[in-house]
């Protein structure tokens, strides 16, 4: 049945997070971006909503709620509507947790999930991106080779969110003899594994205050139990698509925020004797921004919903949503800046920050997942 209705619970979460985003995240977004550091209290404030613990089964100390990609899409859009960087910092550990819930063996869940159900934030990150330009998940270079009952990992992973503090990384690696996403597995790698080196990244255009790490895996030896899902492995396509749609959901929130910010300005700013919002060249830009904010959201919702149900159409819907958001989100952020003219270029206002964040969210396979 096709319906655009959110559940009562989703509506409540959405409303409370929209309030949090507007009152708490947005006002300090600029200061955090300038400082280039993510305050611990931001992550704690987000953690206090229990967003990540909610979907951890009760057996592991969690809330026992549904593991819902749709709910996560709603959460990420709401938080992204306040500040994309803070949204990512708050929700990045969810990538690790969701992957464990979706694909982990009982032993893996029992070992790792309980510590994410407590009151103290726990950092963990998905290690997906690599150094080469034109990175593609199905053609990644990090390899996992069988050695006895265990595995040996070699390669380098980049821009891992919260990688500075993560106690574990979920590293995606490819069977060197295999092809495509079917050959990609995920490995739970402890930070102190021999052969693993963690270094801070040089910085990044967008999501600037989100701590990001680079890890090199030099013949890192892991036990057989480190492979997520055990012998069954994972559906890497599903995992990667959850990350892509996660970033897209944040971008939708960002675009709504940028559009809503530009609207009152267009009514205030006078040029040639009237507000620029009364000129069709500006009014039509705003109309298009509104149109695409709406349609991007439905694209993201559809992908998230199909991913949640593991529907056969989920991969297609994810590719379409990612493609659509990639094209539209960057244009909306860019047009919002353009409406402000020179003021949009100055770092006093958030426009240039939103452009940087929009570009980052639409080229980096998700630092957050639905």
């Amino acid at each position, binding site marked *: *049945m*096709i*319906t655009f*209705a959110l559940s009562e619970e989703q509506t409540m979460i959405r409303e409370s997070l929209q309030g949090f985003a507007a009152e708490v995240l947005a006002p300090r977004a600029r200061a955090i971006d300038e400082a280039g550091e993510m305050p611990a209290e931001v992550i704690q404030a987000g953690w206090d909503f229990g967003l990540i613990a909610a979907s951890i089964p009760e057996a592991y100390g969690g809330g026992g709620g549904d593991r819902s990609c749709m709910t996560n899409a709603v959460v990420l859009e709401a938080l992204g509507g306040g500040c994309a960087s803070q949204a990512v910092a708050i929700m990045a550990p969810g990538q690790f947790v969701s992957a464990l819930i979706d694909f982990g063996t009982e032993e893996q869940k029992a070992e790792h999930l309980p510590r994410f159900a407590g009151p103290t934030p726990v950092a963990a990150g998905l290690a997906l991106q690599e150094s080469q330009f034109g990175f593609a998940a199905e053609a990644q270079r990090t390899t996992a080779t069988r050695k006895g009952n265990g595995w040996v990992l070699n390669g380098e992973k980049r821009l891992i969110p919260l990688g500075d503090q993560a106690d574990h990384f979920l590293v995606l690696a490819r069977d060197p003899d295999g092809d495509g996403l079917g050959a990609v597995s995920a490995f739970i790698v402890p930070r102190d594994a021999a052969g693993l080196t963690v270094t801070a990244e040089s910085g990044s255009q967008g999501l600037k205050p989100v701590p990001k790490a680079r890890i090199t895996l030099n013949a890192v030896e892991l036990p057989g139990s480190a492979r997520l899902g055990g012998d069954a492995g994972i559906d890497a396509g599903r995992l990667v698509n959850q990350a892509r749609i996660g970033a897209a959901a944040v971008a939708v929130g960002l675009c709504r925020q940028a559009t809503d910010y530009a609207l009152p300005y267009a009514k205030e700013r006078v040029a040639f004797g009237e507000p620029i919002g009364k000129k069709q060249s500006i*009014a039509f830009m705003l109309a298009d921004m509104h149109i695409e904010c709406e349609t991007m959201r*439905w694209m993201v919702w*559809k992908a998230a919903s199909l991913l949640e149900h593991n529907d056969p159409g989920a991969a297609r*819907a994810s590719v379409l949503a990612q493609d659509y958001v990639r094209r539209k989100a960057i244009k909306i952020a860019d047009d919002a800046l353009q409406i402000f003219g020179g003021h949009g270029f100055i770092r006093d206002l958030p426009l240039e920050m939103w452009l940087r964040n929009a570009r980052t969210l639409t080229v980096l396979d998700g630092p957050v997942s639905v």
Partner: protein
Amino acid sequence: MADFRLSAIDQQILDKVIEVGNSTTAHTRYYEDHEHETPPARLEGERGFEEVFPLFGQRQPDDTPMMTFMMAVSIARGSTSGVVRGLGLAMPSGRASGLGNAALQSAGTAEQKTKWGNLFLSMSITEPGAGSDTKAIQTTARLDGEEWVLNGDKIFVTDGVKCDGAIVWATIDKSAGRAGIKSFLVLRDAPGFELVRQEKKLGIRASDTAAYAFRDCRIPRDSLLGGDETVPKGGGSASYKGVMKTFNMTRPAVASGGVAKAKGALEFAKAALAEEGVTVDWDKSFNQRSAVEQKLIEMEADTEAATLSVLHAAWLSDTRQPNNLESSVCKAKGGEVCRTIPQAAMELLGGMSVSHDHLVEKYLRDGRISDIYEGTGQIQRLIIAREILGYSSEELT
């Protein structure tokens, strides 16, 4: 919770619509070549919507809401390589599914609905000098005893040849601007009502388009839709707003027609390219795709986005929520893809796509109107901009 999956029966209905539509491919060019005929109810061997209709009985109460689903049906229907006639039978208003019927149902009195509800009614608004700017219309109506006397010219009347009557917009007080505009039901045999010509068009040739002249055309006093003969001061009339309200459900329907042609062209291109060995691999990342694969994905994403915007506007209507803004959003998207997608499909397919051997060129010609009628894309953006900026129609023109 938000869901985008169809039930088995709904999928079966859409599959059946497509099967029936594709089965009539042989007749497709007939409608092109017999533009000046009012087509017969059914051509020899042509299958129709009556094959689909019985399946609706198997739908469950918790299936996709009706208007939302009918938008999906409309998109499937219009995307086929043939025609599926008789869809009107499935609509709530029965046989009388003209645009004018929507206006009658929305703005007419109970008596008027009873009296004219079974007629097929066209909508006659546009004039040689007034298109989207409807308040500029010049056709006048003057009360003379118990009759209205209409004078003026109307063009672009959809179904204007085959209809039983038309809902005609005319002003009863030019000085009052929009507030003076009323709608009148004029039957085809009214004295002074002339069918001037049937237009020749780029596409949608099976749908007739008429031009009318009213020369002292006399109609009974009770032909004024809604019956309100007053002209309110300083504001739009209830009658005008009543008629504008009809577009809340008709815009999604018209948008669905545009999306349908985009989808048809896209499906044609995908099938044709698949024969040449080019298909989209949903597992491939952006950087691993060919330019043609990427173009196909963009076309499919644009079509999907437009589809969802149409379904959303209809779903709001189904769930009794305001959808004025969303109707314009979906109409803007439907209007966009009806142009860009068939154009892109032909670009991908190259020179032979222009040939009448194939139908892809027809999707471009048939689809193009969707960004014009029922409000151009520019008008939709104007409506959206006014709404989100909080400007009146006088403040943002």
